[in-house]
């Protein structure tokens, strides 16, 4: 076999200089006269080690990281030694890639292929069991596919955790000339990047999941609504769709089944609220992204008024492996009503940030300690925000909560899309609470007064509390404002912005200038 060197090309690797590293490696290979191919792969999701350069020889795959341009010559020396069967003898040498603790401890189902090869190579995708789910689906009826998804226990990974199979059943049952599959790739939560990683590292899996969804409910048109903040994913997804169409996995008469499925990427335009499914549909229709009242559910009256499946990237990705490997295998992971694996995204002030796919049930503390190895700054952790900008700030007393939708709901927190943002003890939680309100001002669709106006008032009231103007009265006002937002908002933007605000106030009152009253 040919010796290969892999240099990732996902957004984070690129943002850390992977292109320059790849160029230096190519140059070094030429000047040394080595017989080695350079492959641009996706990322394994161990972002703290990016750019992670991997060497594949007949003896297996080994890794070096983080590799900077200035390290390239010494890495190539080590590569030559490895190829000759000698010790690597290089400070950046990490040993066998898959034995790296961070990766070895994970349970990768959706991300099993991530970073292994060129994300656009169809042959590679098939070699790694790609399109196995589609092959099976092509032999099944729509109802059988929906039943399989129901059996898996899969719940939506976009945030609301609604059972995917039940949503699909509704769309399957809705009689209509035209139905749609819409993939929600708006991934707006800070601290999340799993959708991006999947699209950049294993785009065919998303395509496969969407075709399966189309076969299941009888839809022949799909859209991926992708945020414009993801130029790399945009480029890769478009190429993947082209390749898949040419190879007959998309388009007319897929696999000679008589079924068609057409797929298009549509770019968002920098609006967080367009991640909310009805706002997303309005936006796809070319309108302002104003949230729609429900009912009617998108499953009954969705895109252009037609029955529509709206699912997150990871939900649709999981479907491919559920069909491929069997629903029971998927269901065997997890706890309670949270089945399968969760793509935890560890971010913020953390030493070892990255993607961690694990069965539900692991605790936050295990994630930040065992995987994260503490903060990037080396200072103590003060707060963890899970579930994006609408998620609560959790103090240490809550880090032993298992990652399970119900367990998190019980402490007024949420798993959401699985993002974890870590703050060290220099963080000012009053400033974070103010930011939560400010974010709501910037991103509210404007339909409900409590959300549109309440958030602006919220910023002012927090400012007055912090600067000690009529503090007690303003505290009461802030709580009333939060109540109004929670009760009077049409969607979670206005309805949950109070969560980070209230948690900051409850657990970190000293940051608001309040003396600790010892009453909690």
């Amino acid at each position, binding site marked *: 076999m040919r010796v290969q060197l892999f240099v990732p090309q996902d*957004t*984070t690797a*690129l*943002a*850390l200089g992977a292109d320059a590293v790849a160029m230096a490696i190519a140059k070094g290979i030429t000047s040394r006269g080595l017989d080695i191919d350079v492959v641009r792969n996706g990322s394994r999701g161990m*972002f*703290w080690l*990016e750019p992670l350069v991997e060497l594949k020889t007949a003896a297996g795959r080994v890794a070096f990281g983080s590799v900077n341009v200035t390290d390239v010559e010494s890495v190539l020396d080590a590569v030559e030694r490895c190829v000759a069967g000698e010790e690597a003898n290089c400070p950046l040498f990490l040993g066998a890639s898959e034995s790296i603790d961070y990766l070895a401890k994970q349970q990768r189902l959706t991300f099993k292929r991530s970073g292994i090869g060129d994300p656009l190579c169809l042959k590679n995708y098939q070699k790694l069991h790609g399109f196995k789910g589609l092959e099976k689906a092509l032999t099944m009826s729509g109802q059988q596919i929906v039943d399989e998804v129901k059996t898996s226990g899969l719940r939506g990974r976009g945030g609301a955790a609604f059972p995917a199979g039940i949503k699909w059943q509704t769309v399957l049952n809705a009689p209509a000339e035209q139905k749609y599959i819409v993939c929600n790739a708006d*991934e*707006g*939560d*800070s*601290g*999340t*990047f799993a959708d*991006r990683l999947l699209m950049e590292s294993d785009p065919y899996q998303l395509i496969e999941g969407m075709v399966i969804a189309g076969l299941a409910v009888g839809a022949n048109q799909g859209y991926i609504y992708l945020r*414009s*903040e*993801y*130029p*790399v*994913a945009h480029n890769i997804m478009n190429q993947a769709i082209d390749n898949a169409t040419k190879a007959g996995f998309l388009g007319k008469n897929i696999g000679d089944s008589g079924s068609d499925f057409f797929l298009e990427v*549509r*770019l*968002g*335009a*920098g*609006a*967080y609220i367009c991640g909310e499914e009805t706002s997303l549909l309005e*936006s*796809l*229709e*070319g*309108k*302002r*992204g104003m949230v729609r009242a429900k009912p009617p559910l998108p499953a009954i009256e969705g895109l*252009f008024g037609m029955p529509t499946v709206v699912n997150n990237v990871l939900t649709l990705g999981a479907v491919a492996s559920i069909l491929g490997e069997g629903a029971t295998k998927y269901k065997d992971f997890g706890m309670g009503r949270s089945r399968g694996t969760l793509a935890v*995204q*560890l*971010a*913020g*002030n*953390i030493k070892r*940030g*990255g993607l961690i796919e694990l069965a539900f049930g692991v605790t936050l503390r295990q994630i930040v300690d065992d995987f994260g190895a503490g903060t*990037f700054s080396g200072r103590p952790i003060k707060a963890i*925000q899970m579930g994006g*900008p609408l998620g609560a700030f959790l103090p240490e007393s809550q880090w032993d909560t298992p990652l399970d939708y119900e367990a998190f709901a019980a402490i007024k927190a949420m798993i959401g899309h699985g*993002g974890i*943002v*870590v*703050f*060290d003890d220099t*963080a000012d939680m009053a400033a*974070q609470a103010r*930011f939560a309100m400010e*974010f709501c001002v*910037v*991103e509210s669709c404007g339909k409900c007064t409590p959300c549109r106006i309440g958030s602006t008032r919220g910023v002012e009231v927090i400012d007055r509390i912090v600067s000690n103007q009529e503090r007690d009265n303003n505290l009461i006002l802030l709580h009333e404002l939060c109540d109004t937002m929670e009760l009077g908002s049409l969607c979670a933007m206005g309805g949950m912005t109070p969560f980070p605000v209230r948690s900051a106030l409850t657990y970190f009152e000293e940051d608001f200038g309040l003396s600790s009253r010892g009453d909690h």
Partner: protein
Amino acid sequence: MDQSNYINDLVEQFKTLPGGMLPLLHAIKHKVGHIPESAIDPIAKGLNLSRAEVHGVISFYHDFNTQPKGRNIVQICRAEACQSMGSRHIETHAKQSLGIDYGEVTNDGLLTLEPVYCLGNCACSPSVRINDDIHARVDSERFDQLIVDLKKQDSRLLEGDL
């Protein structure tokens, strides 16, 4: 080809696409850098909407703007993960060193500075996007270096234009 011609061409190209408004606006932005006022009429006509409706869509989205922008777009991420790694300092530094606030263009037309809420690079924050390139672990010094590099690249492009 002058501006009104290619706007008409783009309208023709997208007007029959279901939900073609955003793709059309992106295409115009890609060509011109912003959505010129002169584009509103042809868009409204082509898509069978009122001018007010077209304006309504443009004003809803942070990506679209009827004001001309700088030759380059520099975005600083101000979402939570980047904040936890000190992005607030970079914001202050950038505004000060460039002498502009968010949404403004530098005097030389080099760049528009914009806020952005997450670039999906949150494990290696703080993040900055310059045109289509995203940069990780940016501090004030690195920010200055990125701007120096951008200036060099920009003047090469300008010379190439002459």
